[in-house]
């Protein structure tokens, strides 16, 4: 729904490698995200992470990204210099990655890194920063004692909560989360997703959640975009997923094994 309310508008986004004649890795993708939770789902290599990186202006060279339109609110994302990007990323447009241990600096305490996030994007006194940080830690389910810890002293779930707190500190308009729970134990995944979606709704932030697990994101998002080989092949409200008629969506939906699939073949998508 590309209307006034949409925070992010992507139209005809294409990512390709420099080599001539190669298939585009992301091929004319269009979608919009408003104040809502949208999931971008697909298998490995479908181009979902490349889409996220292109939105954030971070296509890894030798890849190049072009779009007919790429807007965040009133800002044209294709027309930003390095300085403007630095002011935008981490404040109004935030990113959570798969492995919290790689997103945090291993030689600085959690407190140092949270203070830095606020210092870079606003003018607050030390007391104001501490107040905001403690309030955010509380809503992320963390005790203030984590401030003095180093990233390697955190468990995976705690680490991802710290990253989430850091990314939401500046009250971003949109949070992009790229497989935020894949590095976590199965039992923790729902817990972290629930926390993320709760925080995002409470702050009026839009969410673009990237994942390969359709059933899991369906429980936490409003709308789902299904991506296959660089294209968005299906879009539907999360509640309507079990009824989707698209063959690829149906395959993804039923590919999770459980006790009732014992002795049966799991569905595998065959494009022919």
């Amino acid at each position, binding site marked *: 729904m590309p209307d006034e309310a949409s925070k992010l508008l992507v139209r005809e986004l294409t990512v390709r490698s420099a080599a001539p004649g190669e298939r585009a890795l992301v091929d004319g993708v269009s979608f919009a995200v408003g104040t809502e939770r949208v999931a971008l789902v697909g*298998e*490995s290599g479908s181009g979902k992470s490349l889409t996220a990186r292109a939105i954030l202006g971070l296509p890894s060279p030798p890849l190049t990204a072009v779009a007919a339109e790429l807007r965040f609110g009133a800002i044209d994302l294709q027309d930003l210099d390095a300085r403007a990007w630095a002011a935008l990323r981490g404040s109004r447009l935030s990113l959570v990655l798969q492995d919290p241990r790689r997103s945090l600096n291993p030689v600085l305490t959690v407190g140092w890194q949270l203070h830095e996030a606020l210092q870079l994007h606003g003018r607050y006194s030390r007391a104001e920063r501490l107040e905001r940080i403690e309030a955010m830690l509380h809503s992320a389910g963390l005790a203030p004692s984590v401030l003095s810890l180093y990233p390697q002293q955190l468990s995976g779930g705690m680490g991802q909560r710290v990253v989430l707190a850091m990314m939401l500190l500046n009250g971003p308009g949109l949070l992009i989360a790229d497989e935020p729970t894949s590095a976590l134990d199965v039992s923790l995944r729902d817990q972290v997703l629930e926390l993320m979606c709760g925080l995002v709704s409470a702050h009026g932030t839009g969410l673009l959640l990237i994942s390969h697990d359709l059933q899991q994101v369906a429980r936490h998002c409003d709308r789902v975009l299904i991506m296959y080989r660089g294209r968005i092949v299906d879009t539907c409200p999360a509640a309507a997923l079990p009824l989707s008629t698209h063959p690829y969506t149906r395959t993804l939906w039923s*590919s999770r*094994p459980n006790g009732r699939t*014992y002795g049966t073949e*799991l569905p595998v998508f065959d494009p022919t």
Partner: protein
Amino acid sequence: MSADIAIEELHFSFNAGERPVTLFDKLKLTVGRGETFGILGPSGCGKSTLLRIIAGVQRHWSGRIRLFEHAIVPGARFKGALRCEIQMVFQDPYASLHPLHTVERALTEPLVVHGVADAGTVALERLQEVGLSAHLARRYPRELSGGQRQRVAIARALLLGPRLLLLDEPTSALDLSAQAEILNLLNRLKRSHDMTLILVSHDRGVIAHLCDRAAVMQGGRIEKILHRSELSQV
């Protein structure tokens, strides 16, 4: 049901500095012939260590272990037939394949070591059996997707006609679509080869999909055994 694996009074400790840390104490486990047995538990519960002991990789234990008709001696390397009869597939296929060896070389080496004639042909047959086309034989592991790499690792484990296949989190590095393909392959191989399977995973769904029986492990102890009727409720 005759048992393929019988473990009794198994004791195992890690040597952590001065004081050893005991993981298994009087552990008992029996796996029947042709059974697909699951081991389920959180990180650090000892499920991979148990698999490594059965594979003969971890040899510093005490107790009694019988694999098929062989009684295993602690501290000794596997000899003779056991080296063919027990094979293992690891979690990360990239780490378990030599990065500078082509698929063909990775698959012919075990055959050459065991003096199998016509190694090249046998290797190609196995490659096709796991659903990979012959032209992939010339590729290096880095040129394959995660799912393809895990197929190569499974093909390698099948080369010497194992009676027991040990699978340590074989799909947890893969996305759901690739996981579904690998689980279908394992189900098919289970029917076509006369093998006993032990599958270690922290994903209840994977265990419930594939296994006839499963042990739930916690802190080095087997808390309970789930039978098929209980697994079907997962």
